[in-house]
């Protein structure tokens, strides 16, 4: 059963477990590849995570002169192949979300690979497996469909990805609480 990463952004409590877990994934060499941002830093404590959304037509791979960014059969957009990456940093400029990181010492780009060693075997990525507030979830399309029914949005405002993103992505993003105008209690 194909599962995908599903984000309910407003659940985020800013604990940064996802960042810490990311460092521990095989191949990540103890450096995290995702981000947590304040939403309105001088006013409230709300945070939101941001990570590679694994575009269906990824700009990073399209702009890579070395074909170092490969797309896995699961749809995950992989980190640069170490022997191919020539260190031009085109991908960091092309990505509409500013996700790829670059190591000038190693002359190497690195980005979220959706923990491909785990997800290719159906195991959730590190970030989703540790998230304590269900911001990051690892769900089948059917389960994501159930979410849609559960939130019972009759205003047609259910969103997953578009129009808040630039193009279709394999990671689905949603903001049900904000769109319904309700506050969630945990």
């Amino acid at each position, binding site marked *: 059963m194909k599962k995908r990463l599903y984000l309910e*952004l407003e659940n985020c409590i800013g604990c*940064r*477990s996802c*960042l*810490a*877990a*990311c*460092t*521990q*994934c*095989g*191949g990540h*060499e103890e450096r*995290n590849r995702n*981000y*947590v*941002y*304040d*939403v*309105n*830093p*001088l006013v409230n404590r*709300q*945070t*939101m995570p*941001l990570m590679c959304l694994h575009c269906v*037509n990824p*700009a990073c791979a*399209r*702009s890579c*002169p*070395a*074909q170092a960014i490969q797309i896995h059969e699961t749809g995950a957009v992989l980190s640069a192949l170490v*022997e*191919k990456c*020539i*260190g*031009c*940093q*085109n991908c*960091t*400029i*092309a*990505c*509409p*979300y*500013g*996700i790829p990181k670059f190591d000038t*010492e*190693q*002359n*190497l780009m690195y980005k979220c690979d959706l923990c*491909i*060693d785990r997800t290719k075997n159906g195991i959730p990525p590190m970030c989703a497996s540790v998230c304590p507030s269900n911001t990051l979830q690892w769900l089948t399309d059917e389960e994501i469909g159930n979410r849609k029914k559960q939130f019972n949005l009759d205003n047609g405002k259910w969103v997953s990805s578009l129009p*808040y*993103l*630039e*193009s279709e992505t394999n990671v689905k*993003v949603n903001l049900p609480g*904000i769109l319904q105008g309700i506050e969630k209690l945990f």
Partner: protein
Amino acid sequence: MQAKVAVNQKTGKSIDDAFASHFAKSMFLAVCGLVFLSFIGTRMFTHVDLNLYGYMVGTFIFIGGFFYRFIAWGERPPTKVFIKKGIKILLRRSTPKTTVEHLATYNFIWNRGIYRWTQHVLMGWGCILSCFVTFPLVFGWMYFTMDENGYYNIIAMGIQVMTVPADGLIAKLSYNALNITAVMVISGVCMALYRRLKNMQARAEQQFMYDFLPLFMLLLVSVTGLALTFMNIFMHGAGQPAMSLIHQWSVIITLIYLPFGKLAHIPFRPMSVFARNYREHYAEQSMKGCKVCGNEFVSTEQSKDVIEVLGRNDIEFQAKEGHHLAEMCLPCRRKYRIAQFSGFPIHEVKVKEANQDAKG
């Protein structure tokens, strides 16, 4: 679209019009070059080592595959930009230093780990030196003659370079050059295999066909090559003819495979010098300021090129504010996305970026 068609129209006057395609032209020039060099090197084909004939055929097939792969690769819009501009700005003062650091001493691999650097130097230089010995011998650019008993003449490109005693140091190094490089490659491959078996990070990502197969091929080439020496010295040449065919087969298969698998990074790697030059050259010319915070984050040229390359792939990241997303610096671009979700323009708030360095 009209403009693109016009650019591709043939004028009928360029030398390029004599050839059906880039591939045909490159192949023609490469084969002519090899034949010409061999003509000179072998003193008009009088010193061809026909024992190495198989390698010659293998090399021609390799060149065909190499051009096919390289040209297909070079036709991609971003690659084309880097090749064109890389050649244009090749004569920079920093080019020799960058070339040595990227292609000879592998400083960036040193920064990825000393163990990986060691294995890469052993394998890389083992292969490069082997090629420097093998191909001149195959095409007759280098051969040995003996006028006087006990002395070898080394002939390079048809010119007698030096005469050395047959049991001297230089002669010994020449006889054993491929044995030495074989030991280098075998040690490097063994280190690489050990790392791939033991290192958890390598194990997480590696695939047998992509990561292991090239190592086994290099190992096969080196072991069968060393076996030839072993059979000559310790077995009075028993089995040598069969082993020489096995060795030849392994080398030719590896050559033909080279442009298509992991080993393709060997001929493609010089692009990293182009990329470094490109970044340095255009950064000196003018830097692009972020449309939101004003910080300079990339050269104007690269920002322009990326936008154009994305445009050719029908990807247009136009922000509502009127600029392209590639014109924003990375932190601003991330905050801009958060702003799209939350509705609050955090990218316009001048506060330090939140902590992004959680330790596991």
